[in-house]
């Protein structure tokens, strides 16, 4: 069983389009995250939800909108895609407030904007 699963794994789209990435975790965690990995492999947090409540919102263009219908799911919708949005997007999950906040990552979604 996959602990954190993302769909799709690959996404190729044209500039200006709107796209969504979905994430689901079956670990019973209450906190989920979106991280962006750029072409130099640098990982940076974008958003985090705890029990459907947004708790982290880094400096991200408002074209990016996360949504969490329940604590096991976190989706990322991107409007008006730009070339610079091309990256690998990772979903992760953990338990909030833990002494050892181990985060589990999905396999990533490689977004290519052409």
């Amino acid at each position: 069983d996959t602990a954190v699963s993302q769909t799709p794994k690959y996404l190729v789209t044209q500039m200006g389009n709107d796209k969504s990435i979905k994430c689901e975790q079956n670990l019973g965690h209450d906190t989920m995250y979106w991280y962006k990995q750029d072409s130099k492999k640098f990982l940076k947090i974008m958003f985090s939800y705890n029990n459907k409540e947004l708790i982290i919102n880094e400096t991200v263009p408002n074209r990016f909108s996360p949504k969490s219908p329940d604590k096991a799911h976190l989706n990322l919708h991107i409007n008006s895609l730009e070339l610079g949005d091309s990256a690998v997007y990772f979903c992760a999950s953990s338990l909030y407030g833990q002494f050892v906040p181990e985060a589990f990552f999905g396999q990533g979604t490689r977004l290519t904007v052409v």
Partner: protein
Amino acid sequence: QQQVKQSPQSLIVQKGGIPIINCAYENTAFDYFPWYQQFPGKGPALLIAIRPDVSEKKEGRFTISFNKSAKQFSLHIMDSQPGDSATYFCAASGEGSSNTGKLIFGQGTTLQVKP
């Protein structure tokens, strides 16, 4: 502002060698320091982690050394194998009792272990 600085960017060792990857952090509020391993096309996976109340932690062939006063920590891989070839990330986290689990990552180190 890069809160966690990692070096070297890339590393090549022979099988059996001991690659060492170093990280330095700035924020003294950090209290959890994990290392993640990432293979091509995969997500990062937790390898080993340490808290600042200990100076060293070993798990199998992987060892973290932690120097709180210098705000530095490092990963040592004993008896490295070609299967250890991957990108390694250090990270830091910690906001006390309200820890959101937000991870601040280093820039990553690409390790190649030659047979």
